[in-house]
């Protein structure tokens, strides 16, 4: 009999405490664990140390909701929808504490922790002003064999990682088909791992697609079924970016309406959220956007 790690979305508040460091999976507009992010807002988490490689609406929403005390990132962007408004405002005007990494620096810090190492060396980012600002993270060391000068990055250990998978069994063998981004390395580095997924499935379905299991169950502490759990970001190949909700978000986040926007998320259940944004055929349309995406032919093929 295998262990059943399935818990309801409402358990996120029990697994992530005020002040915890939380690595959020996904990248750019792909596959952020948004259902869990909304739950963190519902339960009113405060003073979180949020870690992201490339965050977007996940990070900006948490910052805007007042849940973040420190931010570690290599990029936070709303891409076509502009600079992330809450991220900007909190840093420029409210003194939000942050640590800006280079992209590889943060990835390698996670990798170090995943391997149980205090640091890992690599070549670079020579010439960048960032390492000098963060001597507790970046240091210069010499290769013991050749004497070459290298950059050491300190291991990054989030208390919790939250990642969104395509499916998982109850034990936590989690599968991705499309973008897993930094999810696996965040999970391996974290003290505790929450997997939200589109669907909790029987173990036999995992076995049938064993090549898609990217996170074996021994890394995973809790499994939460959260269909459309990455919305408004994408979970390809199931659904595409909800660009219309992003537009609404970007406009609200840059205006006085943002308080009301957050209040709506705080007071509605995940089911109500889904009814609101996926009803009226919108869910089907977000799936169809994947179907109509077009691969082009190279010449001579």
């Amino acid at each position, binding site marked *: 009999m295998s262990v059943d790690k399935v818990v309801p979305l409402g358990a996120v508040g029990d697994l992530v405490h005020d002040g915890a460091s939380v690595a959020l999976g996904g*990248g*750019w*507009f792909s596959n952020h664990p948004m259902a869990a992010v909304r739950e963190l807002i519902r339960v009113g988490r405060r003073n979180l140390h949020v870690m992201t*490689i*490339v965050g977007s609406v996940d990070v900006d929403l948490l910052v805007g909701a007042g849940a973040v005390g420190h931010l570690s990132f*290599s*990029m*936070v*962007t709303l891409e*076509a929808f502009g*600079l992330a408004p809450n991220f*900007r405002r909190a840093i*420029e005007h409210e003194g939000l504490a942050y640590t*800006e990494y*280079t*992209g*590889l620096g943060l*990835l390698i810090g996670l*990798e170090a922790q995943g391997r149980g190492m205090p640091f890992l060396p*690599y*070549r*670079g*980012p*020579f*010439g*960048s*002003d*960032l390492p000098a600002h963060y001597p507790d993270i970046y240091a210069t060391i010499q290769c013991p064999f050749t004497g070459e000068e290298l950059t050491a990055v300190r291991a990054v250990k989030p208390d919790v990682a939250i990642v969104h998978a395509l499916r998982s069994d109850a034990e936590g063998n989690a599968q*991705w088909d*499309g*973008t*897993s*981004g*930094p*999810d*696996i*390395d965040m999970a391996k580095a974290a003290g505790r791992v929450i997997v939200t997924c589109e669907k909790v499935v029987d173990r036999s379905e995992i076995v049938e697609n064993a090549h898609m299991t*990217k996170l074996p169950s021994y890394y995973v502490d809790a499994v939460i079924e959260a269909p459309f759990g990455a919305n408004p970001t*994408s979970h*390809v*190949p199931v659904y*595409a*970016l909800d*660009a*219309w909700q992003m*537009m609404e978000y970007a406009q609200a986040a840059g205006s006085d309406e943002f308080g009301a926007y957050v209040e709506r998320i705080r007071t509605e259940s995940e089911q109500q959220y889904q009814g609101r944004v996926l009803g009226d*055929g919108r869910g*089907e*349309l977000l799936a*169809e956007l*994947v179907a*109509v*995406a*077009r*691969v*082009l*032919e*190279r*010449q*001579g093929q």
Partner: protein
Amino acid sequence: MTDYEVHELMVCRVAAEVDDEGVTVMGSFTPLAYSAYMLAKMTHAPEAFLVGFDAVGMEPFQLSFTGAEAAAYKGAVCRWGMLTEINSIHLSNHGGVEAVSSAQFDGDGAINLSVIGSFDAPKVRLPGGAGAAEVIKMYRKMIAYFGKHDVRTLVKKVDFVTGTRWKIGPESREAANLLPGPIVVVTNLAVLVRDHDERPFRIESVHPGVTPEQVVEATGFELEVPDDVPVTAAPTDEQLRLLREQIDPFGTVKFDFVSGKDRLQYLASVLDAEWRRAEESIAARRP
């Protein structure tokens, strides 16, 4: 010859740098860079190896704000995780070409995606560089593009060095275990190139109707101006046809060239078209 707009000229010039050697990692969805990669892959560089989202190796695809990731997924030869592959590509010199843009750029090949003003009390907090800091140093070629060539963007010295080319000349790059290759800057006015440790950027070409003097005036760092500066090669009819009909029929590239309050309106109109196509596809399936 077909008439063209400056963003199409820029796409074609960036595409010319994409070749069959090494890997291109596509980070943020930057339509100008993406369309250049797709154009190269559909014309002179069919073996260009593109990595984006979790697609490691892919067929070229049509650009859209909502469909790029799904199209990359569909044409992928391998689906993998970000860290595992990007780490190896960047760090073991597999990186060939990646086109980046930034809020500020200077004559040393440094980019600023961090802050305008001081780091600790910034006037503008920019998004951060993601992998750009490492990419521009480690890749064989550094390609940078700017839709608005002016002294606010091409500055004497960036406010903050998020990342930099670090070693520029071929000998100093090789001595640092880096692949030798140039810095190529493509703007709405001209093409600038630097491949020497001591010598500054030189104007490689100016776009039609632009003089070298205008380029010097719009640039905050020193430029070498050759006696004869050629005009940037115009896109071919075939390139324009592929861009307009196949790669970017929704007009995502032009979005970056729309400014002010027209910008969101333009984005909304592109998204409308993307929505309608999906809606029509659903309707076509219904009996």
